[in-house]
């Protein structure tokens, strides 16, 4: 366990030094600043627009970050052969994978926290005050983090198999498909063909269902997110995260390092 923590912290330190992450954060913050301008154009929905745009920025840039650091992670170690000096020590491959994943999560957490802080700064600037009700935004951020945890897991898994570019493509595709998985199942039902319907239903349960986590609009309109959704989505992320990490471990167990 101590080794896992050690690897996780090392991964965190390594990815935190990636300059690209800082660029992305800066872009996100700029966008939030711009949102304040958009809001002032159209009276009455300033806050809705800020919350919408702010949360969407955190989501999109968080997604880019997750993919970017996730894909390079294991691949870099294999490509540069620094993994030799890790696996030749008493470190199980499983510990390596889990450590990498935890390090990634930590990085995402920190980056998201920075962007959220920037968001609240923008909100404060717009409203001149913050109230307890504004904490509701944190719920949406939490859901975004759950999503990102799964994206990072996907990136990690692909990083064990293929090159960064392919990993990025696969991860992005699965993210998009995962957002539309409910539609895919609905299409299957509409076609009327039993085979297609069964197939799309299987896909629906198999693929990560990112659509469940989309609560940005609700939070922007000040709606309360039911507790049941909070718990079940957390559980979903936990289960699917387990699946991804297990799969990555299985892949790495088989891999040889020429």
């Amino acid at each position: 366990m101590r080794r896992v923590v050690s690897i996780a912290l090392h991964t965190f330190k390594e990815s935190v030094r990636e300059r690209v992450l800082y660029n992305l954060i800066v872009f996100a913050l700029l966008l939030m600043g711009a949102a304040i301008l958009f809001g002032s154009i159209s009276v009455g929905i300033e806050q809705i627009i800020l919350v919408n745009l702010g949360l969407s920025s955190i989501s999109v840039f968080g997604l880019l970050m997750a993919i970017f650091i996730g894909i390079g992670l294991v691949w870099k170690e294999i490509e540069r052969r620094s993994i030799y000096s890790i696996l030749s020590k008493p470190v199980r491959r499983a510990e390596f994978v889990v450590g990498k994943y935890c390090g990634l999560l930590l990085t995402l957490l920190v980056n998201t926290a920075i962007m959220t802080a920037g968001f609240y700064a923008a909100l404060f600037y717009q409203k001149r005050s913050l109230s307890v009700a504004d904490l509701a935004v944190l719920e949406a951020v939490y859901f975004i983090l759950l999503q990102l945890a799964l994206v990072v897991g996907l990136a990690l898994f692909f990083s064990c198999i293929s090159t960064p570019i392919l990993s990025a493509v696969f991860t992005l595709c699965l993210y998009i498909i995962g957002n539309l998985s409910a539609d895919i199942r609905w299409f299957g039902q509409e076609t009327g063909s039993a085979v297609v319907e069964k197939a799309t239903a299987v896909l629906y349960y198999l693929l990560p269902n990112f659509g469940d986590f989309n609560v940005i609009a609700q939070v922007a309109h000040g709606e309360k997110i039911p507790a049941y959704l909070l718990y079940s989505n957390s559980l979903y992320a936990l289960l699917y995260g387990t699946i991804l990490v297990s799969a990555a471990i299985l892949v790495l167990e088989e891999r040889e390092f020429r």
Partner: protein
Amino acid sequence: MLAVETSDLTKDYYVGFFRKRPRRALDGLNLRVERGEVFGLLGPNGAGKTTTLKILLRLVFPTSGTARILGRELDDVAMHARVGYLPENPYFYDHLTAQEFMNYAGELFGLRSAERQRRINRLLERLGLGASRDLPLRKFSKGMVQRVGIAQALINDPELVFLDEPMSGLDPLGRREVRDLILELKEEGKTIFFSTHILSDAEVLCDRVAILNRGRLQGCGELGEILSLGVAVTEVVLENPGEELLKELRLYTRSVVQTGERVRLEVPAESDVARVLALVVRHTAKIVSVNPVKMSLEDYFMAQMGATPEAPPSREAVNAPDPERRGK
């Protein structure tokens, strides 16, 4: 208990677009390494030395055959705690300093903070990296990276150390230091298993060697035995011998090489040496040295490779004018 023991170790790589054709990197390797000895795995590039090491360290899985390290099976990851490994052409983490990297390595072994720091200090000093402790590895020269590699291989005070081309990237001073280090480690009772293609290093360090070629074990044995397989030639170096003497000596000598005032002769037959010396004395020429040249490891190596052992062409021969034509 043997330090390392392999039995029929075989590794096939599958090449080709659909990974169809097998290329045999290792073929039925049988090795035995005793504890406390320095063992050299020799061979040309591509012979399978690195593959062997990777299999032993579980970075690559064998196609068939078994192996044991310190009496434990290869899949016993805990056994790695007693082993150190320096990979070939190592790369570590650019963004870390030597101190941070050694710390990371130590953490992975589960060393406690104080003990860890003590060992890091000692090892960095020992390998001449004390001054570069806080420099990021990105700024290290190849030789320095090599030293860090050796340091991280020793941080857990292992019983058995695997070194893959430990001398690569080092200048002569560095090589000397590493050579001394290996001998020190041997004094401490450690077993050293290193692979190299530089025979002179092996000659100085190893108790036993194994020669690998194209995945097959070509020869294996105690270095002492190999090198005492007889005297190849006797080397006689004279100063200003004079034409006449050389003409007479030609009967007994194989190669005559002149550099400046010195002439180096090789006398193949041991029995002729006395007669040669008598001739030299009669002509009152000056003897610089008389050296029985034992079969070198290189000779042994070449023999195993299938080539005939030859006197190594020395640098002087390349530059000197043809002695046969001298004086004509």
